[in-house]
């Protein structure tokens, strides 16, 4: 059991990193990766929302969608969006410091494709409650890892002499390509399993 959980954890964190090998959550990856600090906060907010999503998906799959599987997509997106909004209100009331730290990113995350993808993957792979939670934490940390790496590189690149045409989106994509190439090296981590 624990070996399976470990496999889920490391494959979601490194081998099948959401951003670098599934291309999920690219909008914040390119949009918000300018500063290390914001990238880190966004990563935390993302992980947080992913955990809530995983819980909500599990509840939906076990109690509601068995009766109406064709409503899956609509149910996920509505429940995720409203749960995030609800949690946002609770945090604002009870933990104002955390709320300020997460800022605008908390509501924006709902439209991040990584969130819906988590719900879908969790369903198609048949993960239970615990497996789903481990998967969510690992994916969130994986997103954060990619964001922080990208932000670190871009902070460095700002100081160096880059050809004028390359500045902006084109260079971000090339950097992401190199990062993704590096992450492919993790593919052999569990003896190619």
């Amino acid at each position, binding site marked *: 059991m624990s070996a399976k959980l470990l496999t889920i954890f490391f494959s979601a964190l490194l081998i099948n990193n959401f951003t670098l090998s*599934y291309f999920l959550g690219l909008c914040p990856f390119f949009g918000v990766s300018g500063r290390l600090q914001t990238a880190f906060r966004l990563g935390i907010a993302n992980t947080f929302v992913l955990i809530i999503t995983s819980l909500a998906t599990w509840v939906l799959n076990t109690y509601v969608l068995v009766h109406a599987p064709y409503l899956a997509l609509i149910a996920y*997106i509505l429940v995720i969006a409203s749960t995030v909004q609800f949690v946002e209100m609770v945090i604002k009331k009870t933990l104002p410091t955390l709320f300020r730290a997460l800022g605008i990113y908390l509501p924006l995350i709902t439209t991040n494709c990584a969130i819906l993808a988590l719900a879908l993957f969790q369903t198609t792979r048949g993960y239970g409650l615990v497996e789903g939670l481990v998967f969510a934490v690992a994916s969130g940390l994986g997103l954060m890892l990619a964001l922080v790496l990208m932000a670190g590189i871009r902070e460095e690149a700002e100081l160096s002499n880059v050809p004028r045409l390359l500045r902006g989106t084109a260079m971000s994509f090339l950097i992401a*390509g190199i990062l993704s190439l590096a992450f492919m090296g993790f593919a052999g981590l569990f003896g190619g399993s």
Partner: protein
Amino acid sequence: MSAEKSRFVPELTKGIFRENPTFVQVLGMCPALAVTNSVMNGIVMGIATTFVLVMSSLMISTLRKVIPSQVRISTYVVVIATFVTVADFTLQALLPAAHHEMAAFIALIVVNCVILGRAEAFASKNPILLSIADAFGMGVGFTLALVLIGSVREVLGNGTFLGHQVFGPHFEPWVVMILPPGGFFVLGVLLLGLAKLAEVRSRASQRRSQTTGGEPR
């Protein structure tokens, strides 16, 4: 009505070049990279996205005076999710192989920012006919971008185009191109090329206006 007619063509064509969702607005990156390891997947994804775009724009534009503005985003999302479900089940029935290959990404059309972006920026403010033109143009632009990225990746990474052999039998496929890093590289290089093209063009138009002494742009 005549004003609406005169705007029809520009609204239709702007999504294909001038405001191309992938290359100019850089929206909807996730599907643009995730499914373009072959041309066929790119075409299927493009058509599915265009269908959802046109249908949800039609629906939202029709209901634009009924939807209260406080809950408009959630309304749009429900409309879009409905049409994505339709597209998902249709593809599952018609093209089971292609659907199996990119199952999660068809469902992820729901969170493609191009669709919600057009609903919010265009269909919620414009008459039905113009909204359809706008959505269709954007869909075609998106499909063309996917096909372009997909062709580069399939030809280089697999030596085929739509499954047909392009090079001779001695071609060694550049496998990394159909793997995830290839997606980032190809789009990066294409964006670089477009930036160069835009620069050359703006310089040429500057020179022209200087030599003819024409009016400042």
